[in-house]
């Protein structure tokens, strides 16, 4: 599939419903596509990615790890050199709720950040085929990767949906 003849067809839309229309059409033709938008909209999600995001699972796992790690840190460090303070137990569990709690959040938060990095594929140092700076401004975009012989079909589907312009980028 991956060869030099692959093209990127870029549709630029002013209106979100037009773009979604195009997505539906492209999807119907089984094309691989990316839809770009200046904002996240649930309408877009419903069309493009209706499943739940796995980020949540990662966050939960990390948070649980953090909780265990926080408690373990406090307990093990205290037991490593047991020093009494004020007749309190060496491993005073109530006091260790704080490190446990804080590390739950810390690990959970950092895990979520990691999840974003992994799932959103950032940091991304590469140029992106078909990306247009207007997408971060006020335009919606639908980019389709297709073989050279499918370009016209895709282009037509986009124009039909109401694209402002459709570009074909050669050297994908």
């Amino acid at each position, binding site marked *: 599939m991956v060869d030099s003849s692959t093209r990127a067809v870029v549709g630029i839309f002013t209106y979100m419903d037009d773009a979604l229309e195009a997505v539906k059409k492209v999807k119907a033709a089984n094309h691989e596509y990316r839809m770009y938008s200046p904002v996240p909209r649930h309408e877009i999600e419903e069309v493009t990615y209706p499943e739940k995001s796995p980020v949540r699972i990662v966050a939960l796992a990390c948070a649980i790890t953090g909780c265990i790690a926080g408690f373990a840190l406090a307990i093990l460090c205290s037991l490593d050199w047991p020093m009494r*303070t*004020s*007749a309190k137990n060496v491993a005073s569990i109530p*006091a260790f709720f704080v490190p446990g709690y804080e590390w739950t959040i810390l690990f959970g938060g950092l895990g979520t950040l990691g999840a974003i990095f992994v799932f959103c594929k950032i940091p991304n140092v590469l140029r992106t085929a078909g990306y247009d700076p207007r997408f971060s401004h006020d335009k919606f975009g639908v980019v389709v990767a297709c073989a050279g012989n499918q370009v016209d079909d895709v282009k037509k589907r986009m124009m039909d949906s109401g694209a402002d312009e459709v570009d074909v980028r050669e050297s994908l």
Partner: protein
Amino acid sequence: MKGELVQLNGNRKQAETQSGEGLVNITRRRFLQVLGATSAVGAAACAHPAQQEILPYVKADPEQIPGVAAWYSSTCTECSAGCGLRVRTREGRAVKVEGNPNSPVNRGSLCALGQSTLQSLYDSDRIRHPLKKKGMTPQGPVFEQTTWDEVYGKINEALTNATNKKVLITGEPQAAHADLLTPWLSQLGFGQVVWDPMQPVAVAKASELVYGTFGVPTFSIDKADVVVNFGADFLETFVNPVGYARQWADSRRSEHPLRFVHIEPRLSLTGANADLWLKSNPASEVRVALFIIGQLIQRGRTQGLPGDTLASLKELTKGITPEAVEEETGIAKEKLLLVAQYLSDADSSLVLAGGTAASTSNPLPLQVAVNILNVMLGNIGKTVNIAEMAAPKSSASDLATAIADMQAGKVDVLFTYGTNPGFTFPAAYGYDYAVNQVSIKGGNKKAGLVVAFSSFLDETAQLADYILPVHTGLEDWGYTRPTQDAISIIQPSMRPIFDTQSVGDVLLTIASNANKSIVPADITSFDKFVKANFLNATSAQAGGDTEKFWMASLEKGGYFPASNNNGSSKVAINPSIFQLSYGISRPHLHDDELIIYPYPSVKTFDGRAANKPWMQELADPITQAVWGAWAEIHPDTAKRFGLKQGDAVILRTDDGEAHVPAYVTEHVHPGIVAIPLGQGHSAYGRYAKSAGQGSVYGLLPKSIATDADSLQLIGGAVKVVRGLGNGDLVTVQDFSSQLDRELSRTTIIGGAAAGVAHAVGDAHASGHGDGHGEGHGGHHEPKQMYEQREHPLYQWGLAIDLAACTGCSACVVACQAENNIPVVGKKIVNQGREMSWIRIERYYDSIKTEDGGEELKVSFLPMMCQHCQNAPCEPVCPVYATYHNEEGMNAMVYNRCVGTRYCSNNCSYKVRRFNWFQYEWPELLDWQVNPDVTKRTVGVMEKCTFCVQRIAEAKDIAKDLGRLVEDGEITPACVQTCPTQALTFGNLKDSNSKVSKVARHERAYKVLDHHLNTQPSVSYLNDIRYKA
């Protein structure tokens, strides 16, 4: 401020002990620390602190093992009580002074001044070589270094040429010097003048009139049931404060405590410990004494008196009505009658007079009346031992005459040593002018010679043409005679630091230069003289092997036979006593005048302690003030003069003025202004000079109490003028009420039947009722969420008997000396940053009397780290710098401390101290630093450790012996030195230890424990007060 110990950036000299354990060069290290904090990258890599050296001895010293202390016995020379000392030395340096348990005077204890004798030895301003006066500048005289030979030559020349009088002014000489001076004075034709303002000469004179012998009797306070005291501060400075405090305390904590009435216009430390303090009009005490005599005659308690005297006494006391005495003395007649009642009811009693209250223009009548009282009450031979009398040689009139002679040009040669008349004699006499007359002209218009034998450039020494630096007490030989038979040896505990000589050797050299033979030829030096005299005096005991006896005596500290000389009760009343005037002599006061009331304090005595930073920074037990003098003024009077606490006050007489801050307190008579003696030096050293401006002695009138030959301290009128702004009063405690917080508690015992009646929570009897209420920390059952801490071997604990604690603050200085606690200076104390680990809290509260009135109750509460089992400070430290160890101690690890100060915030007792700055010891004072205790660096917390170094040492020794530490082997510095042995330390785990027993005492409680459940390791025993 000049003279502060804090030297933040300058003059940090790397000190090294003789063993070469160099102290860390703080400057560089701190610089690196600062760098490290700001830039984590190791800029340290390029900085190499100077390498440390480790210096061995050249020759082995058999007495020294590096790192092991050697102890030497000696005798204290700070005052004339003659307390035995044990000096701890490390690598040849004296580092700590403690009482010698063998000495009958102090029985192992030592007062604050005695302990700070180390700061005489290591006084940074000591004279280090012979000096010759170069000239005068506006800032004072300038001296240049000279040689011993030159000065001896000059002296010899002057002695040869002298045609007029030759005068030697000394302090109250120790016995060895007295023995040497007797031939010396006569052979060399010197007249001796003795001047020591602390000597109770009036007491001695009155003894002569009533008992027949000149001298100060020995008192047995512990044998009295009732003590009535006219101002004698026997818990502070009077004759033998350490010994008397012990006697007093032994009685107070016994089954039958003595009842103590104190009569004085000002609340002194001694008065604060009395059951009843009666605020008398100044100089009116004699009327009280006469009134009591009259009352006793009425009640028939005259058994000790010869018949004829009784008749004359009746005559003398005729017409003294209670009302009249109330009018004269300002004391309610009920109280006066009560005092008379106490005395007449008591089997044995003691009446004393002394101190400033008795230093009036005619002190003799009061002293005589007191002696008569003792005779009437049958106290002679019981509580007053007139067979053991010390005869003070001090004479104010001699000195006054000598000054007049000098002014008149009748003196050619003047030697001074051991006294400071240039400061401690009323400036009105013009001592300095007189000395200049000797120095400039001499009698025969040739230059006279003034030589001071002195280690310190004080007001007297700086008048001299030449100064010969002499050894301080810890470098010198000598002996004192604390009782008639006993001899307490003064033995050097270290080699002289500087080019100094013993006074004895100086005198011997002068004599031999003048070809006078005053001692046998084989005695070539003063130490030989001391040894010979000692062995002579004890020849009966020495047996054959005198050398062995001498070594044993040196080790013991002297020769202390058991004294069973209680003496007879035979008195010889001189009829001339009825010729004395028993009236009150007080000057007429103008509106802007008050009667000046200078008093010696435990801080400075007569001024001799003024250059000792420990004594300057020691909080005065009553006023809690530090550094310098203050003027105690009654609130009513203060209002009249428009003064408030801390205002600058100028006290002015025709003869001089003193600038002091006002200290407004109810506990002085409204007619007086009370000032501690001994501050406001113009010379003597950096600390003395920095503390205060203008000396009290400068205000005293040119009048001597001629009948008693002592200084008239009280009775002069002084103008009180509001100065500009703030008078720089610095106190460490600003709030005096316990607010019902039951910190210091009192057991009120009542009536004639002594015994513990009931406990009250604190001095406010109301609200806490009688019986064993809530406040019984000692029996407080620990309520504990967590399992109780196990203490496998030891659980160290301390118990403090408040009934025995007088508030004398000796423990504070002991702690300061032992634990390298820095002296920080007035400014930093004023910021609330004093470093002392022990604080003597002083509270004024009131006790309800039977008739519904209120009596003042002064409480002293020594407060140090309580080593709580549930210490609030411990769990809050983020780095375990403080934690609980298995010996029950609240451990503090300085080097782990990062300085959050959370522990201090959370300490309910506020006993933790923070190092706000890097405190450094000035040169020479740093020699005293205890090598066993870590010096704390800036930014760390510190606190009482129960002298962990002593615990470690005792455990180390016990381990060598294969056993546990036994009871009594560990005495922290405070416990060791306490004059009243109010403190007990030991192992609480061992239920038979002394401290366990004390902690189980029925008076025992723990401060704040019933509020906070902190479970301190320090127990307190309720104070005891008689119900008035």
